Protein backbone atom coordinates (compact mmCIF):
# COMPACT_ATOMS: atom_id res chain seq x y z
CA UNK A 1 0.00 0.00 0.00
CA UNK A 2 1.47 3.27 -1.14
CA UNK A 3 -0.18 6.03 0.90
CA UNK A 4 1.99 8.79 -0.56
CA UNK A 5 0.61 8.22 -4.08
CA UNK A 6 -2.93 8.60 -2.75
CA UNK A 7 -1.97 11.78 -0.91
CA UNK A 8 -0.27 13.21 -4.00
CA UNK A 9 -3.17 12.44 -6.27
CA UNK A 10 -5.93 13.75 -3.96
CA UNK A 11 -5.89 17.31 -5.40
CA UNK A 12 -6.10 15.97 -8.95
CA UNK A 13 -8.87 13.52 -7.99
CA UNK A 14 -10.82 16.34 -6.36
CA UNK A 15 -10.41 18.31 -9.57
CA UNK A 16 -11.82 15.27 -11.35
CA UNK A 17 -14.70 15.21 -8.86
CA UNK A 18 -15.57 18.78 -9.86
CA UNK A 19 -15.67 17.63 -13.50
CA UNK A 20 -17.90 14.70 -12.54
CA UNK A 21 -20.33 16.97 -10.69
CA UNK A 22 -20.33 19.52 -13.54
CA UNK A 23 -21.01 16.84 -16.16
CA UNK A 24 -23.84 15.44 -14.04
CA UNK A 25 -25.42 18.83 -13.31
CA UNK A 26 -25.23 20.13 -16.89
CA UNK A 27 -26.55 16.90 -18.40
CA UNK A 28 -29.35 16.74 -15.83
CA UNK A 29 -30.39 20.32 -16.55
CA UNK A 30 -30.41 19.90 -20.34
CA UNK A 31 -31.94 16.44 -20.00
CA UNK A 32 -34.80 17.78 -17.90
CA UNK A 33 -35.44 20.57 -20.43
CA UNK A 34 -35.84 17.90 -23.10
CA UNK A 35 -37.71 15.43 -20.90
CA UNK A 36 -40.62 17.73 -20.00
CA UNK A 37 -41.82 18.40 -23.57
CA UNK A 38 -41.02 14.77 -24.44
CA UNK A 39 -43.15 13.49 -21.56
CA UNK A 40 -46.04 15.73 -22.64
CA UNK A 41 -45.73 14.40 -26.20
CA UNK A 42 -45.38 10.84 -24.91
CA UNK A 43 -48.69 11.02 -23.05
CA UNK A 44 -50.50 12.74 -25.94
CA UNK A 45 -53.26 10.96 -27.85
CA UNK A 46 -51.86 11.78 -31.30
CA UNK A 47 -49.55 8.98 -32.57
CA UNK A 48 -47.53 11.51 -34.57
CA UNK A 49 -46.53 13.03 -31.24
CA UNK A 50 -45.99 10.02 -29.01
CA UNK A 51 -44.47 7.59 -31.49
CA UNK A 52 -41.22 9.51 -32.21
CA UNK A 53 -40.67 9.99 -28.47
CA UNK A 54 -41.42 6.31 -27.87
CA UNK A 55 -38.82 5.33 -30.48
CA UNK A 56 -36.28 7.75 -28.97
CA UNK A 57 -36.84 6.38 -25.46
CA UNK A 58 -36.76 2.81 -26.69
CA UNK A 59 -33.41 3.30 -28.40
CA UNK A 60 -31.72 5.20 -25.58
CA UNK A 61 -33.03 2.90 -22.84
CA UNK A 62 -32.45 -0.30 -24.77
CA UNK A 63 -28.79 0.19 -25.70
CA UNK A 64 -25.76 0.50 -23.43
CA UNK A 65 -24.61 4.04 -22.64
CA UNK A 66 -21.08 3.07 -23.71
CA UNK A 67 -22.28 2.34 -27.26
CA UNK A 68 -24.07 5.70 -27.32
CA UNK A 69 -20.93 7.52 -26.16
CA UNK A 70 -18.82 5.82 -28.84
CA UNK A 71 -21.49 6.40 -31.48
CA UNK A 72 -21.41 10.14 -30.84
CA UNK A 73 -17.67 10.60 -30.22
CA UNK A 74 -16.12 8.20 -32.73
CA UNK A 75 -19.15 7.77 -34.98
CA UNK A 76 -19.32 11.49 -35.77
CA UNK A 77 -15.93 11.10 -37.48
CA UNK A 78 -17.66 9.24 -40.31
CA UNK A 79 -19.58 12.45 -41.13
CA UNK A 80 -16.61 14.78 -40.71
CA UNK A 81 -17.03 16.43 -44.14
CA UNK A 82 -20.71 17.08 -43.62
CA UNK A 83 -20.24 18.30 -40.05
CA UNK A 84 -17.43 20.64 -41.15
CA UNK A 85 -19.69 22.09 -43.84
CA UNK A 86 -22.44 22.93 -41.35
CA UNK A 87 -19.85 24.19 -38.86
CA UNK A 88 -20.50 21.63 -36.12
CA UNK A 89 -17.26 19.67 -36.40
CA UNK A 90 -15.42 21.86 -33.86
CA UNK A 91 -18.00 20.75 -31.27
CA UNK A 92 -17.86 17.06 -32.10
CA UNK A 93 -14.06 17.15 -31.89
CA UNK A 94 -14.29 17.92 -28.18
CA UNK A 95 -14.72 14.91 -25.93
CA UNK A 96 -16.54 17.00 -23.30
CA UNK A 97 -19.17 18.16 -25.80
CA UNK A 98 -19.81 14.59 -26.95
CA UNK A 99 -19.97 13.41 -23.35
CA UNK A 100 -22.53 16.04 -22.35
CA UNK A 101 -24.56 15.47 -25.52
CA UNK A 102 -24.77 11.70 -24.97
CA UNK A 103 -25.47 11.93 -21.24
CA UNK A 104 -28.16 14.54 -21.92
CA UNK A 105 -29.96 12.40 -24.50
CA UNK A 106 -29.65 9.32 -22.30
CA UNK A 107 -31.00 10.95 -19.16
CA UNK A 108 -33.73 12.70 -21.19
CA UNK A 109 -35.05 9.30 -22.28
CA UNK A 110 -35.07 7.88 -18.74
CA UNK A 111 -36.47 11.06 -17.19
CA UNK A 112 -39.20 11.19 -19.85
CA UNK A 113 -40.42 7.74 -18.86
CA UNK A 114 -40.28 8.65 -15.17
CA UNK A 115 -42.32 11.81 -15.78
CA UNK A 116 -44.75 9.87 -17.95
CA UNK A 117 -45.38 7.61 -14.96
CA UNK A 118 -46.03 10.72 -12.86
CA UNK A 119 -48.36 12.30 -15.40
CA UNK A 120 -50.34 9.09 -15.84
CA UNK A 121 -50.71 8.68 -12.09
CA UNK A 122 -52.59 11.96 -11.69
CA UNK A 123 -56.23 11.30 -10.92
CA UNK A 124 -58.80 12.22 -13.57
CA UNK A 125 -60.75 14.15 -10.99
CA UNK A 126 -58.03 16.77 -10.62
CA UNK A 127 -57.76 17.31 -14.36
CA UNK A 128 -61.55 17.45 -14.71
CA UNK A 129 -61.73 19.95 -11.84
CA UNK A 130 -59.06 22.11 -13.50
CA UNK A 131 -60.94 21.99 -16.79
CA UNK A 132 -64.17 22.86 -15.00
CA UNK A 133 -62.41 25.94 -13.60
CA UNK A 134 -61.68 26.92 -17.18
CA UNK A 135 -57.99 25.98 -17.34
CA UNK A 136 -56.84 24.72 -20.68
CA UNK A 137 -53.67 23.61 -22.44
CA UNK A 138 -50.56 25.23 -21.07
CA UNK A 139 -52.16 26.56 -17.91
CA UNK A 140 -53.42 23.11 -17.01
CA UNK A 141 -49.96 21.64 -17.50
CA UNK A 142 -48.18 24.49 -15.72
CA UNK A 143 -50.45 24.72 -12.69
CA UNK A 144 -51.80 21.20 -12.17
CA UNK A 145 -50.24 18.37 -14.19
CA UNK A 146 -46.51 19.14 -14.13
CA UNK A 147 -46.15 20.12 -10.44
CA UNK A 148 -48.11 17.02 -9.43
CA UNK A 149 -46.16 14.79 -11.82
CA UNK A 150 -42.84 16.11 -10.47
CA UNK A 151 -43.93 15.43 -6.91
CA UNK A 152 -45.00 11.87 -7.78
CA UNK A 153 -41.89 11.20 -9.87
CA UNK A 154 -39.40 12.61 -7.36
CA UNK A 155 -38.26 9.32 -5.72
CA UNK A 156 -37.74 7.70 -9.14
CA UNK A 157 -35.97 10.83 -10.37
CA UNK A 158 -33.63 10.61 -7.37
CA UNK A 159 -32.59 7.15 -8.58
CA UNK A 160 -32.03 8.48 -12.07
CA UNK A 161 -29.78 11.25 -10.72
CA UNK A 162 -27.71 8.70 -8.82
CA UNK A 163 -27.46 6.47 -11.91
CA UNK A 164 -26.40 9.40 -14.07
CA UNK A 165 -23.78 10.46 -11.53
CA UNK A 166 -22.28 6.97 -11.74
CA UNK A 167 -22.74 6.76 -15.49
CA UNK A 168 -20.55 9.83 -15.99
CA UNK A 169 -17.60 7.56 -15.15
CA UNK A 170 -17.95 6.10 -18.66
CA UNK A 171 -16.84 9.32 -20.33
CA UNK A 172 -13.36 8.71 -18.93
CA UNK A 173 -13.03 6.20 -21.79
CA UNK A 174 -13.23 9.06 -24.31
CA UNK A 175 -10.47 10.95 -22.45
CA UNK A 176 -12.60 13.21 -20.25
CA UNK A 177 -10.73 13.77 -16.97
CA UNK A 178 -13.42 13.04 -14.40
CA UNK A 179 -12.74 11.07 -11.18
CA UNK A 180 -12.33 7.79 -13.08
CA UNK A 181 -10.28 9.46 -15.81
CA UNK A 182 -7.82 10.92 -13.31
CA UNK A 183 -7.63 7.63 -11.38
CA UNK A 184 -6.92 5.69 -14.58
CA UNK A 185 -4.24 8.12 -15.72
CA UNK A 186 -2.41 8.23 -12.39
CA UNK A 187 -2.76 4.44 -11.93
CA UNK A 188 -1.33 3.61 -15.33
CA UNK A 189 1.67 5.86 -14.67
CA UNK A 190 2.42 4.77 -11.10
CA UNK A 191 1.12 1.16 -11.21
CA UNK A 192 -0.68 1.89 -7.92
CA UNK A 193 -3.91 0.40 -9.25
CA UNK A 194 -5.91 -0.59 -6.18
CA UNK A 195 -4.87 2.45 -4.15
CA UNK A 196 -6.28 4.83 -6.77
CA UNK A 197 -9.37 2.89 -7.71
CA UNK A 198 -10.34 2.46 -4.07
CA UNK A 199 -9.86 6.20 -3.50
CA UNK A 200 -11.98 6.90 -6.59
CA UNK A 201 -14.64 4.49 -5.33
CA UNK A 202 -14.73 6.29 -1.96
CA UNK A 203 -15.12 9.66 -3.70
CA UNK A 204 -18.06 8.30 -5.69
CA UNK A 205 -19.61 6.85 -2.53
CA UNK A 206 -19.40 10.26 -0.84
CA UNK A 207 -20.93 12.00 -3.87
CA UNK A 208 -23.71 9.44 -4.31
CA UNK A 209 -24.79 9.43 -0.68
CA UNK A 210 -24.48 13.22 -0.53
CA UNK A 211 -26.80 13.56 -3.50
CA UNK A 212 -29.17 10.96 -2.02
CA UNK A 213 -29.47 12.74 1.31
CA UNK A 214 -30.04 16.08 -0.45
CA UNK A 215 -32.81 14.65 -2.61
CA UNK A 216 -34.42 12.93 0.39
CA UNK A 217 -34.47 16.27 2.20
CA UNK A 218 -36.18 17.90 -0.78
CA UNK A 219 -38.66 15.01 -0.88
CA UNK A 220 -39.42 15.55 2.79
CA UNK A 221 -40.08 19.25 2.14
CA UNK A 222 -42.23 18.49 -0.89
CA UNK A 223 -44.44 16.04 0.94
CA UNK A 224 -45.26 18.22 3.97
CA UNK A 225 -48.96 18.26 3.12
CA UNK A 226 -49.09 14.46 3.08
CA UNK A 227 -47.58 13.88 6.51
CA UNK A 228 -49.64 13.37 9.62
CA UNK A 229 -49.77 16.59 11.69
CA UNK A 230 -48.04 14.90 14.62
CA UNK A 231 -44.96 14.22 12.45
CA UNK A 232 -44.44 17.81 11.30
Amino acid sequence: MDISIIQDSIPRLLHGAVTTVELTAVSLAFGLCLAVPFAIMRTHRNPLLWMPVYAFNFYFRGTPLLVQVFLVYYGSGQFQIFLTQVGLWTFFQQATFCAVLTLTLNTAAYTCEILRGGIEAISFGEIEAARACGMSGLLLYRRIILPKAFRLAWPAYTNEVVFLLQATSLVSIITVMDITGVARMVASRSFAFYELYITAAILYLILVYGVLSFFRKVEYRLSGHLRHPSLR
Partner: protein
Amino acid sequence: MTLFNLKGYGWMLWEGVQLTVLVGVVSMAVAILLGLVGAWGKLSGSQVARAIAGTYTTMIRGIPELVMILLIYYGVPTLIQDIFDVNIDFNPFIAGVATIGFIYGAFSTEVFRGSYLAVSRGQIEAAKATGMNRNLLFRRILLPQMWRFALPGLGNVWMVLIKATALVSVIQLPELMRNADIASRATRLPFTCYFAASLIYLLLTVVSMSLQQRAEVWANRGIRRT
Protein backbone atom coordinates in the same frame (compact mmCIF):
# COMPACT_ATOMS: atom_id res chain seq x y z
CA MET B 1 -25.69 1.65 -48.96
CA THR B 2 -22.19 2.48 -47.82
CA LEU B 3 -23.61 3.52 -44.44
CA PHE B 4 -24.77 -0.01 -43.64
CA ASN B 5 -22.00 -2.02 -45.26
CA LEU B 6 -19.93 -3.75 -42.60
CA LYS B 7 -17.30 -4.78 -45.17
CA GLY B 8 -17.31 -8.39 -44.10
CA TYR B 9 -16.92 -7.65 -40.40
CA GLY B 10 -20.43 -8.82 -39.62
CA TRP B 11 -19.22 -12.25 -38.48
CA MET B 12 -17.04 -10.55 -35.89
CA LEU B 13 -20.08 -8.87 -34.38
CA TRP B 14 -21.87 -12.22 -34.41
CA GLU B 15 -19.01 -13.86 -32.51
CA GLY B 16 -19.12 -10.95 -30.10
CA VAL B 17 -22.84 -11.42 -29.47
CA GLN B 18 -22.27 -15.03 -28.48
CA LEU B 19 -19.68 -14.00 -25.92
CA THR B 20 -21.89 -11.14 -24.69
CA VAL B 21 -24.77 -13.55 -24.08
CA LEU B 22 -22.41 -16.02 -22.39
CA VAL B 23 -21.01 -13.32 -20.09
CA GLY B 24 -24.56 -12.16 -19.40
CA VAL B 25 -25.91 -15.61 -18.53
CA VAL B 26 -22.97 -16.63 -16.32
CA SER B 27 -22.98 -13.25 -14.54
CA MET B 28 -26.72 -13.56 -13.99
CA ALA B 29 -26.23 -16.99 -12.42
CA VAL B 30 -23.57 -15.52 -10.11
CA ALA B 31 -25.87 -12.58 -9.34
CA ILE B 32 -28.78 -14.88 -8.45
CA LEU B 33 -26.62 -16.95 -6.12
CA LEU B 34 -25.17 -13.86 -4.45
CA GLY B 35 -28.65 -12.37 -4.30
CA LEU B 36 -30.02 -15.38 -2.42
CA VAL B 37 -27.09 -15.33 -0.01
CA GLY B 38 -27.39 -11.56 0.39
CA ALA B 39 -31.12 -11.74 1.05
CA TRP B 40 -30.52 -14.46 3.61
CA GLY B 41 -27.94 -12.19 5.26
CA LYS B 42 -30.23 -9.16 5.26
CA LEU B 43 -33.09 -11.13 6.82
CA SER B 44 -31.02 -13.22 9.18
CA GLY B 45 -31.13 -12.87 12.95
CA SER B 46 -27.36 -12.60 13.14
CA GLN B 47 -26.17 -9.03 13.43
CA VAL B 48 -22.87 -9.79 11.70
CA ALA B 49 -24.61 -11.26 8.64
CA ARG B 50 -26.95 -8.28 8.50
CA ALA B 51 -24.04 -5.84 8.71
CA ILE B 52 -22.09 -7.62 5.96
CA ALA B 53 -25.08 -7.81 3.62
CA GLY B 54 -25.97 -4.19 4.37
CA THR B 55 -22.45 -2.97 3.64
CA TYR B 56 -22.40 -4.99 0.43
CA THR B 57 -25.57 -3.46 -1.03
CA THR B 58 -24.78 0.05 0.23
CA MET B 59 -21.32 0.00 -1.33
CA ILE B 60 -22.37 -1.44 -4.67
CA ARG B 61 -25.12 1.15 -5.06
CA GLY B 62 -22.60 3.96 -4.66
CA ILE B 63 -19.69 2.79 -6.85
CA PRO B 64 -19.84 3.02 -10.67
CA GLU B 65 -19.56 -0.26 -12.57
CA LEU B 66 -16.55 0.93 -14.53
CA VAL B 67 -14.60 1.68 -11.34
CA MET B 68 -15.54 -1.78 -9.99
CA ILE B 69 -14.32 -3.50 -13.16
CA LEU B 70 -11.03 -1.58 -13.13
CA LEU B 71 -10.64 -2.24 -9.41
CA ILE B 72 -11.17 -5.99 -9.77
CA TYR B 73 -9.24 -6.53 -13.01
CA TYR B 74 -6.23 -4.27 -12.33
CA GLY B 75 -6.48 -3.64 -8.59
CA VAL B 76 -7.05 -7.04 -7.05
CA PRO B 77 -4.01 -8.78 -8.66
CA THR B 78 -1.69 -5.97 -7.49
CA LEU B 79 -3.29 -6.04 -4.03
CA ILE B 80 -2.68 -9.79 -3.76
CA GLN B 81 0.85 -9.28 -5.01
CA ASP B 82 1.49 -6.63 -2.36
CA ILE B 83 0.10 -8.72 0.48
CA PHE B 84 1.01 -12.32 -0.36
CA ASP B 85 3.83 -11.65 -2.82
CA VAL B 86 2.40 -14.02 -5.43
CA ASN B 87 1.91 -13.12 -9.05
CA ILE B 88 -1.54 -13.80 -10.44
CA ASP B 89 -3.12 -12.70 -13.68
CA PHE B 90 -6.86 -12.52 -14.07
CA ASN B 91 -8.50 -13.88 -17.15
CA PRO B 92 -10.70 -11.04 -18.52
CA PHE B 93 -13.69 -13.39 -18.76
CA ILE B 94 -13.47 -14.40 -15.10
CA ALA B 95 -12.81 -10.83 -13.97
CA GLY B 96 -15.75 -9.55 -16.04
CA VAL B 97 -18.17 -12.20 -14.84
CA ALA B 98 -17.03 -11.78 -11.25
CA THR B 99 -17.50 -8.01 -11.36
CA ILE B 100 -20.85 -7.96 -13.10
CA GLY B 101 -22.13 -10.84 -10.97
CA PHE B 102 -20.92 -9.06 -7.83
CA ILE B 103 -22.60 -5.77 -8.79
CA TYR B 104 -25.93 -7.24 -9.86
CA GLY B 105 -25.88 -9.63 -6.91
CA ALA B 106 -26.54 -6.55 -4.78
CA PHE B 107 -29.54 -5.61 -6.90
CA SER B 108 -30.95 -9.14 -6.82
CA THR B 109 -30.42 -9.17 -3.05
CA GLU B 110 -33.09 -6.48 -2.82
CA VAL B 111 -35.32 -8.38 -5.25
CA PHE B 112 -35.11 -11.62 -3.24
CA ARG B 113 -35.56 -9.78 0.06
CA GLY B 114 -38.77 -8.28 -1.28
CA SER B 115 -40.01 -11.60 -2.64
CA TYR B 116 -39.31 -13.36 0.66
CA LEU B 117 -41.33 -10.73 2.49
CA ALA B 118 -44.15 -11.24 -0.06
CA VAL B 119 -44.63 -14.88 0.98
CA SER B 120 -47.42 -14.85 3.52
CA ARG B 121 -46.35 -15.44 7.13
CA GLY B 122 -49.14 -17.96 7.67
CA GLN B 123 -47.61 -20.39 5.18
CA ILE B 124 -44.25 -20.28 6.93
CA GLU B 125 -45.92 -20.85 10.30
CA ALA B 126 -47.98 -23.68 8.85
CA ALA B 127 -44.87 -25.33 7.43
CA LYS B 128 -43.13 -25.04 10.80
CA ALA B 129 -46.21 -26.43 12.52
CA THR B 130 -46.18 -29.50 10.27
CA GLY B 131 -42.61 -30.11 11.41
CA MET B 132 -40.56 -29.03 8.40
CA ASN B 133 -37.00 -28.10 9.19
CA ARG B 134 -35.39 -24.99 7.72
CA ASN B 135 -33.99 -26.63 4.59
CA LEU B 136 -37.23 -28.35 3.74
CA LEU B 137 -39.18 -25.16 4.42
CA PHE B 138 -36.90 -23.24 2.07
CA ARG B 139 -37.02 -25.88 -0.67
CA ARG B 140 -40.72 -26.73 -0.56
CA ILE B 141 -42.44 -23.54 0.57
CA LEU B 142 -40.23 -20.50 0.16
CA LEU B 143 -38.27 -21.04 -3.06
CA PRO B 144 -41.20 -22.00 -5.33
CA GLN B 145 -43.17 -18.94 -4.24
CA MET B 146 -40.27 -16.48 -3.99
CA TRP B 147 -39.38 -17.39 -7.55
CA ARG B 148 -42.73 -16.16 -8.78
CA PHE B 149 -42.57 -12.89 -6.85
CA ALA B 150 -38.96 -12.33 -7.85
CA LEU B 151 -39.44 -12.86 -11.58
CA PRO B 152 -40.40 -9.29 -12.58
CA GLY B 153 -37.53 -7.85 -10.51
CA LEU B 154 -35.02 -10.36 -11.83
CA GLY B 155 -36.16 -9.58 -15.36
CA ASN B 156 -35.31 -5.92 -14.78
CA VAL B 157 -31.93 -6.87 -13.31
CA TRP B 158 -31.20 -8.98 -16.40
CA MET B 159 -32.18 -6.13 -18.73
CA VAL B 160 -29.72 -3.75 -17.05
CA LEU B 161 -27.08 -6.48 -16.70
CA ILE B 162 -26.96 -7.37 -20.39
CA LYS B 163 -26.32 -3.72 -21.21
CA ALA B 164 -23.65 -3.51 -18.51
CA THR B 165 -21.69 -6.34 -20.18
CA ALA B 166 -20.60 -3.72 -22.75
CA LEU B 167 -18.29 -2.35 -20.05
CA VAL B 168 -16.27 -5.56 -20.04
CA SER B 169 -14.86 -4.36 -23.37
CA VAL B 170 -12.52 -2.04 -21.42
CA ILE B 171 -10.64 -5.10 -20.16
CA GLN B 172 -10.25 -6.37 -23.73
CA LEU B 173 -12.69 -9.27 -23.59
CA PRO B 174 -13.74 -9.75 -27.24
CA GLU B 175 -17.49 -9.40 -26.69
CA LEU B 176 -19.87 -7.42 -28.90
CA MET B 177 -18.68 -3.95 -27.90
CA ARG B 178 -14.99 -4.77 -28.14
CA ASN B 179 -15.45 -6.43 -31.53
CA ALA B 180 -17.45 -3.46 -32.79
CA ASP B 181 -14.54 -1.31 -31.65
CA ILE B 182 -12.03 -3.46 -33.56
CA ALA B 183 -14.27 -3.53 -36.65
CA SER B 184 -14.69 0.25 -36.54
CA ARG B 185 -10.93 0.75 -36.57
CA ALA B 186 -10.39 -1.75 -39.38
CA THR B 187 -13.19 -0.51 -41.64
CA ARG B 188 -12.84 3.18 -40.66
CA LEU B 189 -16.61 3.24 -40.43
CA PRO B 190 -17.11 3.89 -36.71
CA PHE B 191 -20.72 5.05 -36.99
CA THR B 192 -21.79 2.02 -39.01
CA CYS B 193 -20.11 -0.45 -36.66
CA TYR B 194 -21.30 1.09 -33.41
CA PHE B 195 -24.79 1.61 -34.80
CA ALA B 196 -24.94 -2.06 -35.84
CA ALA B 197 -23.77 -3.02 -32.34
CA SER B 198 -26.41 -0.80 -30.74
CA LEU B 199 -29.14 -2.41 -32.85
CA ILE B 200 -27.94 -5.84 -31.73
CA TYR B 201 -28.17 -4.73 -28.08
CA LEU B 202 -31.65 -3.43 -28.83
CA LEU B 203 -32.57 -6.81 -30.29
CA LEU B 204 -31.24 -8.55 -27.16
CA THR B 205 -33.44 -6.25 -25.05
CA VAL B 206 -36.52 -6.99 -27.17
CA VAL B 207 -35.94 -10.74 -27.02
CA SER B 208 -35.39 -10.55 -23.24
CA MET B 209 -38.60 -8.58 -22.80
CA SER B 210 -40.69 -11.14 -24.65
CA LEU B 211 -39.00 -14.04 -22.80
CA GLN B 212 -39.68 -12.29 -19.49
CA GLN B 213 -43.34 -11.89 -20.36
CA ARG B 214 -43.64 -15.57 -21.25
CA ALA B 215 -41.82 -16.61 -18.09
CA GLU B 216 -44.18 -14.53 -16.00
CA VAL B 217 -47.23 -16.06 -17.67
CA TRP B 218 -45.75 -19.50 -17.06
CA ALA B 219 -44.88 -18.79 -13.42
CA ASN B 220 -48.32 -17.38 -12.72
CA ARG B 221 -50.23 -20.29 -14.22
CA GLY B 222 -52.92 -21.58 -11.92
CA ILE B 223 -52.75 -18.46 -9.75
CA ARG B 224 -56.00 -16.62 -9.32
CA ARG B 225 -55.69 -12.92 -9.96
CA THR B 226 -57.46 -10.93 -7.30
